[in-house]
């Protein structure tokens, strides 16, 4: 008997991470003859996601994977699924603790750790350069309101003073996961601040946008660090223009989620929190990693 697994993703069109995730999920499911899936996209809208969960319950799937648009708002919907006897697996970003009773497992990266590691990359580089006592940095965060954006900023902001207490974060503005928006934001930063030693971006897309702005205005010597490595970022690192990022693979992410669901349905024990590793990648060690596909 095949396993029917439904997934409600957050917002597929919005960036290539999510799109690649979707593709990887579908091909992983295709590769497994015992699995049938229905893949839904909430388009970033909580209401639509809840409706999708209700629909999946109504269609009597065997398991539901959810990439929450809002870690709390989906709890009642998840409770419904669990009441209907359908196991729920959370992927990529977790739901709030109140909902833990209704889900079987979480699998995904740890965004806070990613932010923290970015802070470490940045700090180490400053120490190498000998400017760790006076460096000034700016942050370009992801789209306001997204858990991922919040957690990556939070992890960075908490970790930085621990490792490099004298580096100042002078300003944060959102770049909305958008290279173009980020470039505009960076242009304004460059006009406003004469000294910028580093830029931390919520992902490499925005980081490269900021890099483009700096290049266009001829400002050299700025250290760029992102919180998720994209292929544009990887290429910029190859060119020596971009310092580092965090290696996170949507393929791993998708496969882990599907595997967890399959394991749960097969009755295996799975750990409740199932983080996969997201290592640091910099110009120094990048040869150990292949270029991201997205």
């Amino acid at each position, binding site marked *: 008997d*095949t396993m*029917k697994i439904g997934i409600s993703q957050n917002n*597929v*069109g919005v960036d290539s991470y999510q*799109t690649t995730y*979707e593709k990887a999920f*579908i091909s992983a499911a295709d590769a497994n003859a015992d699995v*049938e899936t*229905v*893949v*839904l*996209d909430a388009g*970033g*809208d*909580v*209401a*639509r996601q*809840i*409706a*999708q969960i*209700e*629909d999946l319950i*109504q*269609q*009597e*799937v065997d398991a539901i994977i959810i990439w929450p*648009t*809002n*870690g*709390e*708002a*989906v*709890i*009642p*919907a998840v*409770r*419904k699924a669990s009441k209907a006897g359908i196991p729920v697996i959370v992927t990529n970003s977790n739901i*709030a603790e*109140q909902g833990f009773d209704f889900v079987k497992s979480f699998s995904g990266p740890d965004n806070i750790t990613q932010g923290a590691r970015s802070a470490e990359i940045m700090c180490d580089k400053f120490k190498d350069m000998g400017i760790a006592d006076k460096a000034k940095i700016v942050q370009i965060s992801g*789209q*306001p*309101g*997204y*858990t991922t*954006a*919040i957690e990556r900023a939070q992890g960075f902001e908490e970790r930085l003073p621990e490792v490099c207490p004298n580096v100042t974060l002078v300003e944060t503005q959102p770049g909305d996961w958008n290279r173009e928006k980020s470039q505009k934001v960076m242009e304004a930063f460059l006009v406003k601040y004469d000294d910028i030693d580093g830029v931390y971006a919520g992902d490499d897309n925005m980081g490269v946008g900021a890099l483009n702005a700096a290049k266009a205005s001829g400002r050299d010597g700025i250290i760029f660090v992102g919180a998720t490595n994209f292929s544009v970022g990887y290429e910029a690192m190859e060119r020596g223009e971009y310092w580092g990022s965090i290696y996170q693979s949507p393929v791993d992410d998708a496969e882990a989620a599907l595997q967890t669901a399959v394991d749960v349905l097969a009755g295996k024990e799975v750990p409740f929190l199932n983080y996969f590793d997201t290592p640091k990648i910099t110009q120094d060690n990048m040869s150990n990693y292949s270029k991201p596909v997205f």
Partner: protein
Amino acid sequence: MEPGTLSTFLKRGAIWGFIVFELIFFSLAGEFLSFSDKAFMDLDNMLLLFKQSAPIGIIAVGMTIIMINGNIDLSVGATYALSAIVLLDSMTWPMFAGMGNAVIPIAWGLALLTGVVLGALNGLIVWKTGVDAFIVTLGAMLGYRGLVFMYNGEQPTSHLNWTLVDFAEAQFLGLHTATWFLVAVTAAVWFLMNKTVHGRNAYAIGDNRAAATNAGIRVGPHMLINFMIIGFLASLSAVAFYSESGSVNPNDGELYELWVITAVVLGGTKLTGGAGSVLSTLGGVLAIQLLRKGLGHIGADTETVNLAIGIILIAVLLLDRQLNIKGKEELRV
């Protein structure tokens, strides 16, 4: 022909025809493409359809009034989010501590008040400055969203009250709480627009503003009231939805205005005002929701969903055009 009767209803019938088409199509396609054993036209699924249509539907009913009146409101999504924040946050305010579940009606009241105030602000600006409602509410879409973010930064605002969730998840006579909200709102607004002086005046203002002014109708207060109504309905929609989900992201409700307007226009309401019907709007809302649901049912992926929704919106217009095609004798303009 009295306004709002069955004949007007059927004349704008393209949308209902389309709904029937969707039902048949997805039922048949579902047989082949869906892995679910449940039929698409399963009763529970249809009840869910109504429930899921409620958040957009309640706002769309309000938008119908605004558009009949000759205005537009792009700020409804932000109003929706801000009211949701007030709803959830007010339950935790120290001044209401120890009230138990008695805080629920208070929170509802405050949320609805928020909507009415935001609506009134739009209405007053439109009235007193004479700036086009499109600009005023486009600005408010940003401004109100700014208030949303100001309230709690980028963090979601949450308060899960299980009593409230249970109430919102309840079904009475088979219909979910949110469906009852939608039904009540539709009925009330239908009555308002077709049976009351205010409603008929709103039609007149949208149809021919100069004529209404000449006839001594006070355009400003009517617009103000209608903006207050849509503000109220945007927050009512938030009340219906967030009572159940208990947490609001600061960017919730984004793009709602576009979907709401689409539903209203699909229902046959004119962008220029003066004509339209609440019942047809309901048809527009159901058609869109059915489309999303159906595409999910047959397992279409993101690209396909986007393509299909786009093409189908245009197809509905084409269908409507075919139904209302002019006779040969008509003026070729």
